[in-house]
């Protein structure tokens, strides 16, 4: 009966020619799959900076040790970056100052990215008022200068590790949020997400299977942006005296302290300042490299799919 009829169809048509299969895209776009020279350079800077600060207790002396026989000495072979007004070695203080600055930066960047990611995904998945609310929150955050917010918050609750991290998170989660939100909203409208809804996937299934994997590359980029903005904000706070308190060394705070001797002993402010710049540049370069590698990705995929 019908089965026989159906097979009767096969006979009237010539054998199927093999369908042409497009070659996998990776081969053609091979040059796009690296983070580029700049990105590698940035990564190298970061590895060096982090490595040196992590190994600080093993290699250098005490950042608080004062030596009144060697006050305000210019850089020399004994003190590579010179000494400050209390005779403390600037190199040792820069290295130890990095430990505080980088720890605070890293923790706040992780928390800020996680917060930005979570809010962006919630907005994209639920849409409607959830999306509107998170969007407004971000607008409010952008309207309040983060340094002002930091001054207000820190002058009330005092400046220990947790409040500083909190302030940095508040100041930088919007970066991740906005980058991820735009992409997530586009992905949610893709047909493959609709297809997932039709087969019965819930919101969290869609997030786990489709949304998060597609957003991860962007998150890497957003994270570096977040980290560099957190680092700069942290240094500004230190410079304003709202961050880590002396005598504990911190880059921003050291720059502020060295300002008094900027004409007689410029090295005191110069080297911690350079450290901030170097780290921020490293993060930016890595971020640009990652952006080049990944953000071309989704667009490229779409282009090849057509």
């Amino acid at each position, binding site marked *: *009966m*019908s089965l026989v009829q159906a097979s009767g*169809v096969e006979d*009237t048509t010539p054998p*199927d020619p093999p369908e042409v299969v497009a070659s996998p895209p990776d081969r053609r776009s091979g040059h796009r799959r690296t983070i580029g020279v700049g990105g590698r350079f940035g990564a190298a800077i970061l590895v060096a900076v982090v490595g040196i600060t992590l190994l600080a207790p093993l290699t250098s002396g005490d950042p608080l040790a004062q030596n009144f026989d060697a006050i305000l000495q210019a850089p020399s072979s004994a003190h590579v970056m010179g000494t400050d007004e209390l005779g403390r070695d600037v190199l040792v203080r820069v290295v130890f100052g990095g430990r505080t600055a980088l720890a605070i930066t890293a923790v706040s960047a992780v928390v800020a990215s996680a917060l930005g990611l979570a809010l962006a995904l919630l907005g994209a998945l639920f849409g409607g008022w959830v999306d509107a609310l998170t969007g407004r929150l971000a607008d409010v955050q952008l309207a309040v200068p983060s340094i002002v917010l930091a001054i207000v918050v820190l002058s009330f609750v005092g400046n220990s590790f947790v409040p500083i991290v909190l302030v940095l998170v508040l100041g930088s989660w919007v970066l991740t949020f906005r980058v991820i939100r735009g992409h997530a909203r586009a992905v949610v409208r893709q047909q*493959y997400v*609709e*297809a997932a809804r039709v*087969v*019965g996937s819930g919101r969290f299934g869609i997030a786990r299977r489709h949304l998060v994997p597609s957003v991860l590359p962007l998150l890497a980029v957003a994270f570096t942006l977040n980290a560099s903005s957190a680092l700069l904000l942290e240094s500004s706070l230190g410079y304003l005296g709202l961050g880590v308190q002396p005598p504990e060394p911190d880059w921003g705070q050291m720059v502020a302290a060295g300002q008094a001797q900027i004409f007689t002993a410029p090295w005191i402010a110069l080297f911690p300042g350079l450290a901030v710049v170097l780290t921020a540049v490293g993060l930016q370069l890595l971020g640009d490299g990652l952006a080049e590698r990944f953000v071309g990705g989704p667009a490229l995929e779409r282009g090849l799919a057509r």
Partner: protein
Amino acid sequence: MTAPPRLLTVTDSAAAPGEAAEPVLQLTGLTIGIDPRGGGALDPIVTGVSLQVPAGRAVGLVGESGSGKTLTALAVAGLLPPAVRVVAGGIELAGREVTGLPQKEARAHLAASVGVVFQNPTASLNPRMRIAAQLREALPAGTTRRQARERVAELLVAVGIPDVHKTLGAFPHELSGGLNQRVVIAMALARDPKVLLADEPTTALDVSVQAQVLDLLDELRDRLGLGVLLVSHDIGVIADRTDDVYVMSAGQIVESGSTAEVLREPRHDYTRQLLAAMPGRLDAVRPVGRAAGSEDPADEPAQLVLEDVRRTFGVRSSAGRAQHVALDGVGLTVRRGQAIGLVGESGSGKTTLARIVVGLERADSGVVSYEGTPLTRHSREQRRRWRREVQYVFQDPYSSLDPRLTVAQTLREPLEIHHRALSRHELAARIDSLLDEVELPRAFRDRHPSELSGGQRQRVGIARALATEPSLIIADEPVSALDLSVQARILRLLARLRVERNLTYLFISHDLAVVRYLCEDLVVLRQGRVVEQGRTDDVLHHPENPYTRALVEAVPGRTFA
């Protein structure tokens, strides 16, 4: 609208068929290579193509996607993409060899002698420019403002645009696809070309509009003595509209001759395949039939019922906000075992209807019931059942698969949701059997969508829909994005699955031949209303509604099928 405009050069060289008119376009041994890595090594993608387009004749270039027909056309138009170059052979245009010329001269000659019409009119027009400005841009340099104004209006008259003034002031998105394509044709004619190059000029258009645009091309060819090179995958269009045809496959011309002869007695296997895949031919071997033992569906209980469903969308245009009525009180009953074809042109609301049925879209008013209960009043259990039993096959096999997931991961999603008890081993076995069912090799499990062809992707899409063990499948134009021969195979697959799995189909298409192949019942939708419904054969042979009649008459390939 009809008086021939005086500025258009009217030649009466429309050669009688058979008479060897002067070729206005002649390709000799054209070979095109691609250099994917920029290293200088060229892989040939078009080899040794020779063809002639005489003045006043239409010549077809037919082949499937990837056959090199579009690259050949682009080479003639001087529009090859950067990594692609003409390696050998000649292009003679209006009596002058183009390939050896310095770039500037070649450009000028091309601009003066070839007019190009591409597939998607909205993509060839600048969305931010008014039609008048775009047409002026296409006129030869040195035209004065005054001349330009007259000429632009004449061109629009020549391509049969009824309201010239309104059109001139409009932006492309305010015009229909058919009107836009006419504008593109007017632009192609702006410099009095000798050759008109039309690359799939009607593929993006509705069938009835298609016929009008092709009529226009015919008329212009006769009136202006143009040589027309019509590039198409649609052998029906080629059969109706061309005098000579060249069949292209894998970068080579495999067969050529007068269209009537080639199609009547194809000598090459590839041509035969193309012909066999024509939907018009499919109905000769109609396979549909219900599963063994089932009753006539007319007696079956209704599985899905739509009552007075309405849906409007707000749209914004330069004229302000407006309401677009997608569905205007649609009623429809689908019984178990039926295969219903839902036919209509773009904008008729058929996709909206399908999306409402599967829950991707909500109706503004009206009732959609599944198994007797309205969707809105489903219990949790009923809802889960509806989710499992009603599945959707998407139109576009490219965007409906997550590019990051392998085939197995895509198929695992519905299995994990609806068959939670499956072990890892059982899951793998299910995936294998699904792949078998849609005739894909099991080794495709680990492939990503980018490593699959369009037809293979659509098979994965079908397998995903089957994974939940559905009883009703809603397929929205599942084959319209595919080549004809691939279409035919997917349609056979759908017909087979229907019998084997005892499925009910709601099959949406703009293509009557496709619907006729698969469905015994037919519903015609126009502007959000059902204008006709009944048994497919009755409706197609004795259409009662004038709109249905127009649809039936507009199907290409009638001269031949």
